[in-house]
């Protein structure tokens, strides 16, 4: 069954944006029902274009989503455009579509600066935290088998709980997307206590998610992204969100533009994670 987002929003005058409460600088809440972040801002550009196409003013409704419910919410039409931190992979492509990749995530390890851990191989006998309902759980499982190290896994119910596991000493490492790690470290009580270390465990394209089978919307969104890259606006956004102080506490994430993200911008595409791994 084809989805027609344009017709839907035209009829209702409302567009629902899926947002996250704390997906680092990609998408987070300022409280009071307000959401912001790198992906949220890109989404706002897409919605602006949607508004133009619909020819009427659209009310934007923010729908907070979690790792566990974002896919069903997009599938069942609750959310028209999800602007969180969703990995584009083959399994998900069966259920939803992704806009061209705007951010390439590198799964890394965060540890306490004082721990001396610098790579996966040093995790033998340690406890490693990650978040329930994310692909990092699978990544971790695969790496564990491949590297032959034996560590204990603990799962937080969301990223901040996982980070709390690390902070409170219940875990020795937190394996998660680099931007999330950076974001959580930035808002920690003492950011200098934590470090992102080690090899890149996997590379994951992160993209804005929309309903499957809506070619017009997909093309429109892709075009929006492409033009933002071309005009240099995307680069400005990166600087704004990842290198400069951001609200509410005016902290810096401090995440330089990675090679893989740069590559994705140079050649806009919606390839799933699996194709990155083969590279």
């Amino acid at each position, binding site marked *: 069954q084809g989805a027609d987002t344009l017709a839907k929003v035209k009829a209702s005058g409302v567009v629902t944006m899926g947002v996250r409460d*704390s997906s680092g600088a990609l998408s987070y809440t300022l409280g009071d029902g307000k959401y912001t972040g790198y992906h949220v801002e890109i989404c706002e550009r897409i919605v602006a274009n949607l508004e133009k196409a619909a020819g009427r003013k659209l009310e934007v409704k923010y729908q907070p989503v979690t790792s*566990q419910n974002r896919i069903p919410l997009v599938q069942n039409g609750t959310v028209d455009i999800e602007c969180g931190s969703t990995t584009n992979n083959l399994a998900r492509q069966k259920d939803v579509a992704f806009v061209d990749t705007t951010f390439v995530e590198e799964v890394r390890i965060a540890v306490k600066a004082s721990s001396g851990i610098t790579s996966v191989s040093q995790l033998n006998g340690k406890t490693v935290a990650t978040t329930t309902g994310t692909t990092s759980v699978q990544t971790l499982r695969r790496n564990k088998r491949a590297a032959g190290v034996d560590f204990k896994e603990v799962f937080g119910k969301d990223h901040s709980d996982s980070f709390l596991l690390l902070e409170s000493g219940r875990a020795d490492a937190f394996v998660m997307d680099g931007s999330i790690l950076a974001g959580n470290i930035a808002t920690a009580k003492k950011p200098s206590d934590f470090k992102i270390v080690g090899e890149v465990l996997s590379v994951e394209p992160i993209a804005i998610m929309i309903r499957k089978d809506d070619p017009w919307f997909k093309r429109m969104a892709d075009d929006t992204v492409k033009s933002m890259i071309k005009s240099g606006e995307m680069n400005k956004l990166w600087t704004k969100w990842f290198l400069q102080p951001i609200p509410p506490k005016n902290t810096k994430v401090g995440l330089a533009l990675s090679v893989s993200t740069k590559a994705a911008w140079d050649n806009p595409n919606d390839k799933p994670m699996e194709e990155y791994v083969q590279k």
Partner: protein
Amino acid sequence: MLGLDLSFLNWEIISKFVMNGFIFSIQLTVIATLGGIVLGTLLALMRLSGRQVLMVPATIYVNGMRSIPLVMVILWFFLLVPTIIGKPIGAELSATITFVAFEAAYFSEIMRAGIQSISRGQVNAGRALGMTYGQNMRLVILPQAFRNMVPVLLTQTIILFQDTSLVYAIGAYDLLKGFTTAGKIYGRPEEAYLLAAVVYFVMCYSLSYMVKQLNRRIAIIR
């Protein structure tokens, strides 16, 4: 104090982060209680009707609901309701529907016990005065059953209020979520959990204290 810093809690944070969630939790509790009691009473009447066509589905519904964890029911409804009604719904609405449907099973057990606690003699007295089944139920039995069960119903409401914290499973923004979000953003997660515990305790304790007073009053009237 004890390695905790509670100072981050100020009015700005309460009004920005906590208030919304608090209002939703209360709203969910009230709607689920009222809806649950109405639906639950109907279910109870079905189960006590003595007619197989009514008893069997009501019994299956009540026992089914009562044997699944609330978290699973919340996840289920979130997944299924949009498919069934063919329209997308948000986490808050989904949670509300779930709670009404789920609590109805528990309230129906309370109302059933309440109806059964009315002595056979009262039922006979109403019938002996010439009342029909409906009149007897409406005028004699349900008012007494309800009155007898008010403390239990209120206690269940307190439990319900506590259970609203489980809506985090589908990302609805409730009281707990308000606290944890604030704690997250201001880097004070432990303090946020502790404060949430205190707020829940104060609210539930005052409510259960009121129920106790009410109980005492009722005991005197009886």
